[in-house]
C-alpha cells in the first residue's frame, strides 16, 4: 500500500521558515514580559522579528501559524522539530496555549510599532481565558492594525483532562500508580507463567506519553519518588517516565515514545529471576552472588524474548533489558563477546 503520510524532512523549507519565525517571535514575547516597550532590546528584537516576517511574506505570500494538538503548522504544513529546537518550539507552544491562542496570521503592511503593540497585547493576556482571542481582535481593530490576526485555540475532547492543572495532577497520579500496579502484575504473571497483557501496558504508556507531551512537570515530579521502600517497583516506572521525557526532548516520535516507556517499565525484569535470598540479603554480596546479580540484564533480555514475538517493540525492550548497565563505551555489564552499537533506547 502506498504510504501517503508526508515525509518528515528535517531541513525542508516550511520547517526552516516556521522555526525561524517562532524563534524571533518567542524571544520578543519573552522579552516583553521582562522589559518595557521603550527598551532598546525590545526595539532590536522587534526589528529582527519583523525582518523575518517580511521576508517570509515576500517569498511565500502568506504567513499563518496554527497549533493543532502537539503540532504547529506553518502555512498549513506541519513543522518537524530537531532536538536542539525542541525547547524553543515547546516554549512558544506553551505560551500560546496558556493564552488560548491557536493561530496567528501576518499579512503585508505591518510596521515595527504595530508589532510591539501586538506583542504587549499578547504578553498581557490573562492565562486560561478562552475569550482572549476576542479581546485581541477587538484591540487590534481599535488600534487599526489589520496586518495581524489571531484565532482561538482548538482543544480536542481527549485533551480536556489536561486543561485544568488539578485534573492533570489527578491523572498523573493515576498513571503513575497504575504503572506501578502494572509492573507488579507483570511480575506476578511471569511467576505464574501467565501470558503478559502487553496491551494494557501499551495503553498505560500512551497515557504517560500524552501527559508528558502536554506538560512533563507533574509526571516527572512523581518520578522523584525514589526507592523509598526497597520492595517497590517504582524504580521501573521512574525509568519509564524519564525515558519518555528524554525521548521527547531528542525528537523521538510519539509511537516510539510509548515503546520507550514500555522498555523502561520492563528493563529490570531480569531481577525477578534472582533468588530471594540474594535480593533480600542485607549484608554485602559475595562475588558469586554479584555474578548472579550481574546476570540480570541477560536474563531480562531472555525473558522478553520468550514472552514476546520478535518485532519493533520487543527489540526495544530487549535492548533496554540487556543494555541498561552497559555504558556507551561498552564498559559495565554484561561483558560482550564482540563490539556492538549501544541503542539510544
Amino acid at each position, binding site marked *: 500500500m502506498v504510504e501517503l503520510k508526508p515525509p518528515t524532512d528535517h531541513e525542508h523549507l516550511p520547517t526552516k521558515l516556521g522555526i525561524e519565525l517562532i524563534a524571533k517571535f518567542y524571544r520578543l514575547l519573552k522579552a516583553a514580559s521582562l522589559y518595557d516597550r521603550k527598551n532598546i532590546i525590545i526595539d532590536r528584537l522587534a526589528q529582527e522579528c519583523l525582518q523575518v516576517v517580511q521576508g517570509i511574506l515576500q517569498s511565500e505570500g502568506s504567513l499563518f501559524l496554527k497549533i*493543532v494538538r502537539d503540532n504547529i503548522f506553518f502555512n498549513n504544513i506541519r513543522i518537524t522539530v530537531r*532536538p*536542539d529546537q525542541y*525547547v524553543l518550539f515547546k516554549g512558544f507552544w506553551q505560551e500560546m496555549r496558556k493564552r488560548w491562542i491557536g493561530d496567528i496570521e501576518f499579512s503585508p503592511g505591518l510596521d515595527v510599532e504595530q508589532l510591539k503593540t501586538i506583542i504587549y497585547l499578547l504578553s498581557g493576556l490573562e492565562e486560561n481565558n478562552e475569550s482572549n482571542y476576542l479581546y485581541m481582535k477587538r484591540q487590534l481593530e481599535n488600534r487599526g492594525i489589520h496586518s495581524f490576526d489571531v484565532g482561538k485555540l482548538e482543544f*480536542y*475532547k481527549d485533551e480536556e483532562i489536561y486543561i485544568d*492543572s488539578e485534573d492533570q495532577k489527578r491523572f*498523573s*497520579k493515576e498513571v503513575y*500508580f*497504575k504503572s506501578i*500496579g502494572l509492573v507488579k502484575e507483570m*511480575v506476578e504473571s511471569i511467576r505464574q507463567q501467565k501470558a503478559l497483557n502487553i*496491551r*494494557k501496558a*501499551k*495503553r*498505560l504508556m*500512551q*497515557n504517560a506519553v500524552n501527559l508528558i507531551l502536554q506538560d512533563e*512537570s*507533574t509526571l*516527572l*515530579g512523581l518520578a*522523584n*519518588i*525514589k*526507592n*523509598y*521502600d*526497597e*520492595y517497590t517497583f517504582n524504580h521501573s516506572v521512574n525509568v519509564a517516565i524519564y525515558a519518555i*521525557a528524554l525521548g521527547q526532548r531528542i*525528537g*523521538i516520535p510519539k*509511537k*516510539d515514545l510509548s515503546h520507550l516507556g514500555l522498555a523502561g517499565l520492563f528493563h529490570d525484569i531480569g531481577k525477578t529471576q534472582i533468588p*530471594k535470598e*540474594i*535480593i*533480600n540479603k542485607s549484608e554485602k554480596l559475595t562475588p558469586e552472588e554479584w555474578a548472579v*546479580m*550481574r546476570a*540480570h540484564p*541477560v536474563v531480562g533480555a*531472555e525473558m522478553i*524474548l*520468550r514472552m514476546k514475538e*520478535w518485532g*519493533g517493540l520487543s*527489540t526495544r525492550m530487549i*535492548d533496554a533489558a540487556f543494555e541498561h548497565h552497559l555504558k556507551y563505551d561498552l564498559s559495565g555489564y*554484561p561483558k*560482550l*563477546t*564482540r563490539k*556492538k*552499537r549501544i*541503542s*539510544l533506547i
Partner: protein
Amino acid sequence: MAEEFQVDKKPIDLGSEPPSAEGVEKDEEILLARDLTSALVKAIKAFRFYPSDNPSLVGFREQLLKKFQFFLNKYHSFILQVGEYDLSYKGKVLYENRDIKTSLAFFLYKDGLREIRFVEGLEEWEVQGILDILKQTDSINQLEDDVVTMIWEKDFIHINYLATDEFLEEIPIAIPDNIDQFRKNLVFKPIGHEVEVDLFKEDSEEEVNLEQILSGEKQGLPPVVTDRSLYALTPDEVEGLRRDVEAEIDPTSVFGALDILFEILAVEKEQEIFQDAVNTIIKILDAYLTIGEFSKATDLLKRVNIILKTYDLMDWQLDCIRRIILEAGDEVRIERIGKILEREEVRLEDVNAYLLLLQKNSIKPLITLLGELKNSKARRVFCDALSEIGKGAIELFTPFIDDRRWYLVRNIVYILGRIGKEQALPYLQKAFNHEEVRVKREVVQSAGLIGGSKAIGILVKALRDNDLRIRCMAAINLGKMGNKAALIPLLEVIQSKDFHKKERVEVKAFFNAIGMAGSNEAIPILQQFLERKSWFSRGRTEEIRMEVANALAQIGTSEAKAILEEGKNSKEESIREACMKALKGLLTK
C-alpha cells in the same frame, strides 16, 4: 432504522446508494452524517474484502475523503459516538449491528473506544490510516494491540478519540492519597535489591511527600528545564543525535536484537532459552531474506559458523546452531530468495556469498527454484553456488537429467561438469541424446571438465555430431585433455576423406585441439599435412598449412620446431609463410 453492517463474501456493489433510513430525515446535517457513515462502512467493508493492491480501493478511499471533506467544510467536525452495538451522531443512531462477530460498533466499543472525532483539514493519508486500522478484525493480537493503540500510534492530526481503559483493570488499582497510604497498601514483596549501588548512591532516608511533589511542580520551571543549562550540545553532537534518533526509529532497527541474541548464545546453558534465541535468529534471517538484505544474511551465517568453530559447545547446542544453517537453505527460505530475485534488483555477488554458506539440504529447493527463475544472471549464480554446495552429492542432481525443461537439464549438466565427478558421466551421456542442441553443447563442455576415459567416449561421439559447434567444442575439449587417448580420435578425424571440405572454423578448431594436446605423436601427420601439395584449392591449401603450422608451434617441442624451421626454407611460398608466422608467434609468446 439504522443500517445493518454484515460481512459477507459477495462482491461489493460499488454503484449502490447508501441504504436509506426509515422515515424521512429532515435535518440536512444528520442526512449528510448518515451518508458519510454509510460511505465509511462501505469503505471498511471493501478494504476488508479486497486485497490491499486492488485498484478499486483507491476509489473507495477517494469517495470517502470527498464526503468527509464536504461534511467537515460545512460542519467543522464529525463526532461518532460509539455504543456497544451502534454508532451515532448527535444522538441519532446511524449504524447498528448486534452481531458481535461482524459489528463495527462492537469492534470499537470492546477496546474502550467511546468516540471518534474527525476534524476539518482531514487528509488523505489519515483516511487511509483509519481504514487500515478499521479493516482489521480478527488479525489484531488481543494480548498486544487494540484499536485505540493503533489509532494512537498513527498520531493522526485531524482524527482523535475518546477512550476508556477501565475495562483493562482486572483488579482495580487504588490510587493513594499520600505515601503512607501507598506503603500500607503494599502486599507484594519481590525485587528490590539495588544493583545500581555500584553506580550511584540512593538516599533512602529521604522522606517524600506526594502532595508536595505535585504542588511544587506547577510552580516555576520544572527541574529538568533548569538542569538544561548544565551542558549544551555542540552542532556536531546535535547532528549525531539526530542521526541516532533516525537510526533508532528506522524499521530496520529491529535487527539490532541480533547482537544480543548472539551474546545470549555465548552464555546460555539452558536448552529452552538457547532454543528461543536460535528461533529468533532464524526469524531475523527470514526478515533479511524477505527484504533482500543478502549481505547481512551472509554475515549472520558467518557468525553462526564462527560460533560452531570457536565455541566450546555441548552436543545439543551444536544441533541447535547447525539448525540455523540448515534452515537458511530450506525450501521456505529458498522460495523467499526466489521471490526477491524476481521482484527486485539485488547484488548477485551477495546472493552468491549467501548461497555458498548453505548445506546440502538446500540443493533440492535450489534446483526447484532454478527451474523457475527467469533471470539468466541469477540462474548462473545459482548454478555456480550449486556446483560448490553439491560437491560429493551428485546423486541429488542426476534425477533432474530427465526433467522436461531443457534449460534446467542444461544447468544440471553445467553443475555436474563443475563438480567434476566421473560418476556423473553416464548421466551426461544420457543428456547427450537430448533433442535440444544447447543441452548437448553443455554436455561436451562438462565432459571436457570431468575428463577421463568415459568423458573421452562422449567427446569422440560428439566429434561426429551434426552440429558444427558441438564438433568444434568436442575437439577443443579433447585437445585440452592432452593425452594420447584424446589425440588419436582427433588425428583420425583430420585424416578422414572429407576433412578438407569442412568449414574453416572447424578445421581451425581441430588443428588447434591437436596443438593443445602437445604431443609429438601428432607431428608426422601434421608434417604430411604441411607438405601435401594441394587441398582442393589454393586458398584452402594455404589455410590448412597455416593451421598446421600453428598446431606445430602450439606443440612447441624441439621436434615440432624443427619441422617449422625446415618449412621456413621450403620452396613452397605458402609453407614458408605459414612456418615463419607460426615461429614468430612462438617467439612472441
